[in-house]
């Protein structure tokens, strides 16, 4: 590098600010003019931008991943822990459920679920049956990945817990949190061209120490019971779920 080149070099603070888009337009224009004649400073700016891109790329993973269950549990506290921390546990526990459930248990489970979702004094947050296509809830089921949440009604937040490939389609387990009503966990499946709610249970179902109860009779596990009848395997891993999301659950 020659002495003449040295004379032309800009203060590194200016070059950094330029690379970070911190300069006012007039000053940025002056730097652009300078860089055209100063390959050394141009290389510095290129290097800063490349470093920014490398660092951003290295750390962008969390933006594309669901909120880890442990962090959700830390935020929402014990009642929500049972539902929101579920996907990982579910994978372990479902294996136990698979062999225990039959059609009789399913009928009992659905009956219990029907009772659960009709609280005496109030309209239920959700009922069994088809969801309105393009309703906020249907769209949330179409679009959200496990761990993500969205307000689907005033004061009602839907959070996706897990997704399952089943015979003839997919099912998605989700929680509904309302400011004043008991939380619900539900299962919706899309085999009829749209989502329909196939099972429901309260989020506060008496549970094992894991926070989720693979009960013997399955009357209190309508979701597990229904999944069994549909031949569901373990909960989909994020890559499988991402693929299903891209394909529109078809």
């Amino acid at each position, binding site marked *: 590098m020659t002495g003449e080149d040295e004379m032309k070099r800009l203060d*590194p*603070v200016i070059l*950094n*600010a330029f690379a*970070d888009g*911190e300069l006012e337009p007039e000053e940025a224009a002056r730097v652009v003019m300078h860089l055209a004649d100063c390959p*050394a400073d141009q*290389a*510095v700016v*290129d*290097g*800063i931008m*490349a*470093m*920014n891109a*490398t*660092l*951003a*790329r*290295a*750390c*962008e*993973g*969390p*933006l*594309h*991943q669901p*909120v*880890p269950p*442990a*962090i*959700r549990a*830390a*935020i*929402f*506290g014990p009642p929500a822990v049972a539902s929101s921390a579920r996907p990982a546990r579910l994978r372990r526990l479902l294996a136990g459920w698979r062999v225990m459930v039959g059609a009789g248990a399913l009928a009992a489970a659905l009956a219990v679920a029907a009772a659960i979702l009709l609280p005496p004094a109030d309209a239920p947050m959700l009922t069994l049956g088809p969801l309105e296509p393009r309703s906020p809830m249907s769209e949330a089921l179409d679009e959200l990945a496990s761990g993500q*949440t969205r307000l689907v009604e005033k004061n009602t*937040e839907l959070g996706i817990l897990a997704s399952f490939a089943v015979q003839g389609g997919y099912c998605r387990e989700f929680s509904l*949190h309302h*400011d004043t009503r008991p939380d619900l966990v539900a299962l919706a499946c899309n085999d009829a061209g749209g989502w329909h709610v196939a099972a429901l249970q309260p989020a506060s179902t008496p549970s094992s120490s894991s926070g989720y109860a693979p009960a013997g009779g399955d009357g209190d596990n309508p979701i597990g019971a229904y999944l069994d009848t549909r031949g569901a395997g373990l909960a989909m891993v994020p*890559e499988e779920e*991402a693929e299903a999301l891209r394909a529109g659950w078809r």
Partner: protein
Amino acid sequence: MRSEFANDLVRLVPRLRRFALGLCGNSADADDLVQAGCERALANADAFAEGSRLDSWMYRIVQNLWLDSRRRLKVRGTPVDPADAGLDDSGIGAREAEGRMLLSQVFGEMDRLPEGQRVVLTLVAVEGLSYRKVAEVLDIPIGTVTSRLVRAREALSATLAPKGGRQ
């Protein structure tokens, strides 16, 4: 309302995890840090001033916890598994071995930076915060932000300059 605060907080988690990953260099420590940060925020939710920026407050909490842990444990640089850093998923991360080595090297070199420089560099280069916002989050003058940033980049460029690149 606490549940509203919790909802706002959970929406911030992806960005907090990204920031923490920039500080820690691996996702396991980053997630522990974010979880501890959320717990601290909830425990002190009453202290959060209505109308102020939750993200700024959380960046500060996460940064302080990270500094505490560094001071307590004198953590040495941990080797980074690019898969652990989320770099091997669906085309988002570096696929080629060369790219992975570079990213691993980046985290390794980042770990050698003084803590103040690493925090500033992460907030600017990873989080995309303006210098003014960084100064606000860290409660330091803008001049300190720029000087830390320049020194951090100079230190990194000395070891991470691409072959055949600048200088």
